[in-house]
């Protein structure tokens, strides 16, 4: 080695300029060859972004509905018969410290029809339940039409329809004096509820007051479902004591569940289908990589004189190799950046339409860019080695 004869490294700006020569002089070709990578990265970013956004949407919905709702229902006895919750169950439950709200319903055997002329078999599968006065608030639903039961109407033949029940009965608005045929007598309609996501059984029910149900529908006063709201942080503790509190004599005949758990599970299950689309994105990336490799190989053949000139200007083999490798990475990275932008825009637009908050996970965009760089490096390796091994005299001879 001779001192002072080391080839200096190209500075980063110089390398960037040299690496972008091919892209600047052949823009359309560069854009087309980067398109495959852009599509692949866009697919991956959009799939991950949409999945994360819909998950965020669902979690926001769960947050709105609250995860602190527990339901207590009557289970089965040891002999397989339907168990009965004690009359005292709501009162006992209300005494649990962290419990903030207790509401309940009681199933009746009555059927409901639009009028007495409907054949008895056409029950629409609707249930008639007695409901406590504060039920809608406990299950986070509201009244869509009219009013809910109050202390006065709970004693009279007055009913409120769940959202699904209203649609099955063909009733979409409440007018004064409107009646339905319920348990072989007329009940006046007071209102229609909005859907209750955490208590779908309310949706296909017709609700009447407990005193009315006991008087006209033969209900014995026993609740069948108790809706319990508690301090959110204490929900698990409440859950553990609920069965024994509701029915101290036979706690194993009581079912306790957390309706929001199903929604949470659904949020967790989001992305189960994603692997298919991610696979398609990966295939597109692979095709893009082949495209980049191909275009780089052609570029090396076309630019022999440039390579020869650079060698005569003092470029080492390593510098030529670095130039073409950097060009492939740059090409691929530009495609990847375009893909990230397209995927993010898709996510934002779709999330906006669905009223979700748009989420583009860092793993999606960073992963997309990293994949693009890796692909560029792999695709550019062979062309770069070819370019470096081209003898300068041979490169200069070809014009």
């Amino acid at each position, binding site marked *: 080695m001779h001192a002072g004869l080391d080839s200096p490294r190209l500075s980063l700006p110089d390398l960037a300029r040299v690496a972008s020569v091919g892209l600047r002089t052949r823009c359309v070709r560069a854009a087309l060859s980067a398109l495959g990578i852009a599509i692949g990265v866009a697919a991956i970013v959009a799939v991950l972004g949409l999945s994360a956004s819909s998950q965020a949407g669902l979690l926001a919905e769960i947050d709105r509905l609250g995860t602190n709702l527990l339901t207590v229902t009557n289970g089965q006895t040891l002999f397989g018969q339907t168990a009965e919750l004690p009359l005292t169950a709501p009162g006992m439950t209300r005494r649990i410290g962290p419990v903030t709200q207790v509401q309940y319903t009681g199933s009746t055997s009555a059927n409901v029809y639009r009028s007495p002329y409907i054949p008895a078999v056409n029950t629409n599968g609707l249930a008639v339940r007695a409901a406590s006065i504060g039920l809608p608030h406990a299950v986070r639903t509201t009244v869509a039409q009219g009013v809910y039961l109050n202390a006065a109407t709970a004693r009279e033949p007055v009913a409120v329809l769940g959202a699904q029940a209203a649609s099955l009965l063909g009733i979409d608005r409440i007018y004064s004096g409107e009646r339905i045929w319920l348990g072989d007598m007329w009940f006046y309609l007071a209102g229609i509820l909005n859907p209750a996501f955490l208590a779908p059984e309310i949706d296909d029910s017709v609700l009447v007051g407990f005193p009315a149900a006991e008087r006209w529908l033969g209900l014995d006063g026993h609740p069948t479902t108790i809706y319990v709201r508690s301090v959110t942080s204490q929900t698990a503790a409440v859950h553990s004591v609920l069965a024994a509190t509701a029915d101290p004599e036979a706690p194993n005949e009581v079912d306790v569940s957390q309706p929001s758990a199903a929604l949470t599970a659904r949020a967790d299950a989001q992305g189960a289908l994603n692997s298919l689309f991610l696979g398609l994105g990966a295939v597109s990336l692979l095709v893009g990589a082949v495209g980049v490799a191909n275009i780089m190989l052609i570029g090396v053949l076309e630019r022999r004189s*440039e390579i*020869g000139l*650079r060698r005569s*200007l*003092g*470029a080492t083999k*390593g510098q030529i190799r670095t130039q073409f490798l950097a060009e492939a990475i740059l090409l691929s990275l530009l495609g990847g950046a375009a893909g990230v932008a397209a995927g993010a825009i898709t996510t934002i637009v779709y999330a906006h339409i669905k009223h979700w908050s748009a989420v583009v996970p860092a793993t999606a965009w960073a992963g997309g860019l990293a994949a693009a760089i890796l692909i560029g490096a792999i695709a550019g390796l062979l062309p770069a080695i070819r370019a470096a091994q081209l*003898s300068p005299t041979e490169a200069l001879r070809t014009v």
Partner: protein
Amino acid sequence: MNGKATTLASRLPHQGSVPVLQLEEVTKTYGADPPIPALQGVSFNVGAGELVAVVGPSGSGKSTLLHVMGTLERPASGRVVITGLDVAALEDGELAAVRATQIGFVFQQFFLAEHSSVLDNVADGLLYAGVAAAARREQAAHALTAVSLGGRLKARPPQLSGGERQRVAIARALVGAPAIVLADEPTGNLDSTTGGQIMDLIEELNGSGATIVVITHEHAIADRCSRRIRLLDGRVVSDT
């Protein structure tokens, strides 16, 4: 013009009688079965400040000689010494550094980057010599002034005439003030008038101190050089 050329010459090294380039019994063969000799025992020295023509018919080994002199190829046997450095003792990376700092090339086809400005084309002559970007552009502007293109720094090669393009290529070869400039048929792609003007420029640059070797098959061009080395079948037949 002369004043500007002198500015350039003042930065050129190796003024004096020390040989810039020494060839001793250089041979080069191509192929193996049978081997075709391109150079057979070529020996000559080029001193600093000389203007040498290497002239010979097509196939006489001129291009091979240029590549060997320019360290783009190594000889099969014999010695090539540039500015005191024996090519055989240098590694490929070191040879690249020699090319970057000691040798300037001028090609028949100009080899200019069409999408870059004239200034950037010339500045790229220093790209691999470890000169900072600002200094490269400054020196390039000087070199372009020396070849009378100081007013067209922003122009792109397609906007220039053939003669102007070759001037740009010459400026690129000279921008690093190399010890020797090797010009391969510099007038080959030009009409005789423009070719004559390029030779005027080469003479002028030589007059201001640059060591230049012109490779040509045209005797008219060779006759304008103070020293002519005639090549035939890979051998030096005369050196006057």
